Structures are given as C-alpha cells and as structure tokens.
C-alpha cells in the first residue's frame, strides 16, 4: 500500500520583491494563499516543484509546504510557519495583512482555526 501523502502547495518568494507567493493551478505566482494549487498527489507535486524551480528569474526559495482544504473549500497551511507567510509579522500591521490578503492557517493569539 502506498504511504499516504500530505497535501502540499508550492511556496516561494518573488525574486525582485522578496514577498511570499504560491503557485496556482494556471501557472501564476499569487500572493494570496487561497489561490494556491492544492496538490494531493505526490507525483504531481514533483512535477509542479520542477516547474517552479524552472523559473529562477521569477521566484527564489521554492519549496513544498504542507497544506489542507479548509471548510470553505480553499487551501490553508497546516504549519504555523507557513501561516505567518500568509499574514506578515504580528508586531506590526505590515506585509500581507496590510495588503488586504487573507491570512490562512492558525497563528496563536491572532487567528481562529480555519
């Protein structure tokens, strides 16, 4: 029996701006985590990771991050580190939270569970 695969998104930072972005199903890089392609198949994850790494003039720090589908049907990060990347720092209202982008995942003291 194949071992179970934890769903993933492809996560990166934009080369020029440095901000966090995620790979969408239609091959865009979005700063909005809800637009990320939730990858539920390991082989497909490998293909998407290779595709992402083939764009070194657009993004850096490409990696797979654990994610799941929320009750709203949209993806959210399951680890708090990636949740921070959808939010920004918690000491100032800067980063994505200040750009009207949705915080996804759970940040203790900041957000409820998705």
């Amino acid at each position, binding site marked *: 029996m194949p071992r179970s695969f934890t769903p993933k998104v492809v996560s990166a*930072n934009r*080369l*020029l*701006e*440095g*901000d*966090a972005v995620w790979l969408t199903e239609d091959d865009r890089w979005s700063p909005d985590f809800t637009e990320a392609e939730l990858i539920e198949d390991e082989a497909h994850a490998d293909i998407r990771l290779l595709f992402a790494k083939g764009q*070194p*003039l657009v993004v*850096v*720090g490409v990696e797979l991050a654990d994610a799941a589908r929320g009750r709203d049907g949209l993806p959210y990060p*399951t*680890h*708090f*580190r990636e949740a*921070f*990347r959808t939010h*920004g*720092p*918690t*000491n*100032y209202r*800067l*980063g*994505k939270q200040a750009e009207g982008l949705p915080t996804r995942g759970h940040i*203790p*003291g900041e957000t409820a569970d998705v």
Partner: protein
Amino acid sequence: MYRYDDFDEGFVRARVAQFRAQVERRIEGALTEDEFRPLRLMNGLYLQLHAYMLRVAIPYGTLSPAQMRQLAHIAERWDRGYGHFTTRQNIQFNWPRLKDVPDILGALADVGMHAIQTSGNCVRNVTSDHFAGAAADEIADPRPIAELLRQWSTDHPEFQFLPRKFKIAITGSPNDRAVTRAHDIGLRMVRNDRGEPGFEVLVGGGLGRTPMLGQVVRDFLPQADLLPYVEAILGAYNLKGRRDNKYKARLKITVFENGLEAFKADVEERFRRIRPEWSGVDQDLLREIEAAFAPPAFRNAPVDAFEAARANPVFRAWADTNLHPHRVEGYSIVTVSLKAHGATPGDATAHQMRVLADLAETYGHGELRISHEQNVIIPHVHKGDLPDLWAALREAGLATANVGLASDMIVCPGMDYCALATARSIPIAQQIALRFEELQVEHDVGPLKIKISGCINACGHHHVGHIGILGLDRAGVENYQVTLGGDGTERASIGEKMGPGFAHTEIVGAVERLVLGYLDLRLSPEETFLESYRRLGPEPFKALLYGEHADAA
C-alpha cells in the same frame, strides 16, 4: 570617532559597484541563485519569511549623528520607516527590495558604513562594550583595537572561507558588558605588573545549539602581539575546524574536540612562526586610529539643574535606571531604552533615529552607541543637560525608565521575521513587559535580565539570561523552554534548563510566578534574582514554575 580614509572609501565604493553588477546579472539571469546567494550574503542580504533583510554593520556599536540620520533616511526611502537594532550591534532593515539594495549600500557608503561581512563564514562585526570610551571603570577605550581588527579582517584573503562564522568581542573594562566569554575570541584589556597594556585572550565561547564559555588561552598578550596572535588562532581554526558538519564547525567545537592545550600549542607554534613577519606597521596604524578616538572636549559646568530635577520622581526613576557613571566628573552615560512596554525590543522609527541624532549633537558631543542589549547610548552627557535631554526623549517616547530591569529584554526577531525561527519571540517579550508594567514591580525586583530566542541559534542570548526563554516548535505548536541562572558578565555562566516547556499562552504567567516568587525567596532587597538563584539552586525556582508538579518535572 574613526572616519574613512581614501582607502576605506575606495574599497567600500568598489564593493557597492561590484554588488550592483551582481544584482543586475542575477536579475538578467546570468547568475543562478546558487551563484548569487553567497555574493548577497557577503553583503549582508538575507531572504527571510516575508521579504529580503539587509543587515548593516555598526562597527563596535559606534555611530555618528550623520550616520544615524542616514539610517533613518534608508528606513523611510527604501524600507517601512523603522529599523531593528540587533544583539550584535548591527541594524537590520526588514523590507528592502532586491533592486534597491545597491542604492541602499551606496547611501551607507556616503556616511562611511557598509554591510560587508555581516553574514557568511568570515570574521563578523567586532563587538565591544557599549560604554567604551566613557565608562568610569575602563582601563582604556577598546574601540581603536576593534577598528584595527575590523580593518585587518575585512576582505582578509585567508579568512574569507572559514569553516563557519567567527565573532570577536573586546572589552576595556573588568566589568564585562561585551559578553566576551560567549564569542569565538574574547579580548579583555588588562595591564601587566609593569603597567603595560595587553589582553587576556579567551577562545571557544559561543551560544547556539552547543553553548560554551570561552577559556583563557593567554593570560597576558602584549598589545603589539594582538594581530599576529589572532591570525594564529584563525589559522589554526581554519585548518582544524570541521567542514564536514555545519553544527560542529564553530571554533568552540574545535577547541572542545582537540582540547584547549592541544589547540593552544598549535596557536602558540603558529604565533612563533609568523610573529617575526610583523614589522610593526600595524602598531603605526593603531596609533593613527587612536588619534581618531580622541575624547571630546568635555566641559566643566554646574550640575545644579540635574540635582533640582531629581525632585521630580519621574525624572528620578529614569535617572536611577538609565544613567551610568562616566569617567569624567560632571558627566553621565545615558542609555536610551528601546524597550517601551509593549513595543518591539530594539526597534526604532525613522523619527526616533533623527531625534537621537539631534540629541547626541545638542547634548552628547556628537556620539551615539548601539548596545548588544538593543538600546541606544548617548555616552557623553553633561549632568547639567540631563533634564533637557530627558524632556526631549519623553516627547519622542524614548524615556522609558527600565534599563537593566525585567522589561529591558534582549529579543531576537523570531518567527515574526526570521526564516530560521521555530517560534515567535517578539510577542512574548511584549506581553511580559506589559505584565510587569501592570504589576508595577520591576523597580522593586531590581536587576533582572530576561533574554528570548526564537530558535536554538540563540541570537537572543537566552543561555546567558538570568531567565532565558527559548521558543521551539513542538509538533507544530510554539513551545517555550525556560533556562535559569545564566550570566553574560565577567562571572559568566550558562543557564540551566528547567523542566517541560510552556505554551504560548502559559509562558508569561510562568515568568510572572518566577519573578514574584523570587521576591519571597530573596534574603533582602539587595539580593538580585541571579544571586538568589546561585544561593538556592534550581529547586525552589522549579517549584515556582511547575507548582506541585515540580517533582515530576
């Protein structure tokens, strides 16, 4: 203070031009990220969770008002209006865009600053006592030596690819405010029986995942032998240091694995071999550097205004905590706290930076310092000017009277910014500070050093905190481990790990129980938290942390 000569100026400008070309080639695709990463790191540029981060060196923590104003300008023009002063006397900008970084480096070069060797496996910014050149207990100002080391180590061809990063700290005072025992090399200025200047040399200190205190490798090293001796240490480390395992690559592990005596024998042998090659030109250079650190023209004036202001209890509270004895009669060293209760430790807005620059010019003979404790020092203030200075600081929200107290914490950026972090540090510090403000006990508690790191790399120096807090990721949840009894001074010790960690929602209460419990344990108000801990050992403090479950912990 030291000003760049033509050589320094030309060197820094050339590096800016070089990096500008490297950034262009990266953006065009002529350099891959793997090729570019070491180049950007050599210039202080990291990629963090939300953005790039630029770490700018503030050599031995000394800044002029013009430099501080330029940092304010950079914060406003290319960042988000603030900067973060770090535990290594640097400043970090958290939001630069890649293509702007060469311009930022150019703006730094305009005021004799740079970001060179603030990252990478090389000799990093040499840190020093933040009261250097001003403290009453000082043997001599250590900054000329620190500047000599900076010039010698910058772009040193033999030491650009060390096994791992390398940190040197120097103090000119027997009261160690530079945490010299937690550095790869710690230098303590001493005088021998004949009154000649020299150094006690310590090697192999460091915090991080394997905390160790530096050990004495030379009781007395004559001043003229310093550079060849440091070169011998670095040479021995460069060969013997482990390159197979990043976590065993620091000098502390080299010294530990080889034993101090064997390492020392290697260093001394090298030193004997290379010493004759040093013609003394370094000592000529040192004398030139020393001239640049000539003390300001101190004035003799009445201090009546200071004595009168002490009638005001708010001023007095600030004066009691934030002033330190100056070596010149009638003067004080002022520590400006960047730890307002609830604020981010070490952060200053562009406006605050400008206020500090103006005040240093008006009242402080044009000098500023950044401490590894993430505060700003105005080192030479005449006591007669203190009331006016304090009033101006108050207006800018910079008159928090808490230096050396519970809310004056050292705190790393943690997971709010840092890609290496395993948990947040800043909100924990904010909550602890607000709790102590609410309890109104920190002045009664007295000297207490709480230090918080968001991962085992220990940028927040938690191992040498009287109370150390280490943020970890336990099964996907932030968890905070407590160490007690650490000390970064000349009586340095590594804190002892207590029992199980605390959740994000529990750690503030745990610290409160420790501190309030200490008030009942101390023999007298004069016995500090650390002294109580050293007298009683961990058990009563474990009981405070874990209550009736202390035994199980």
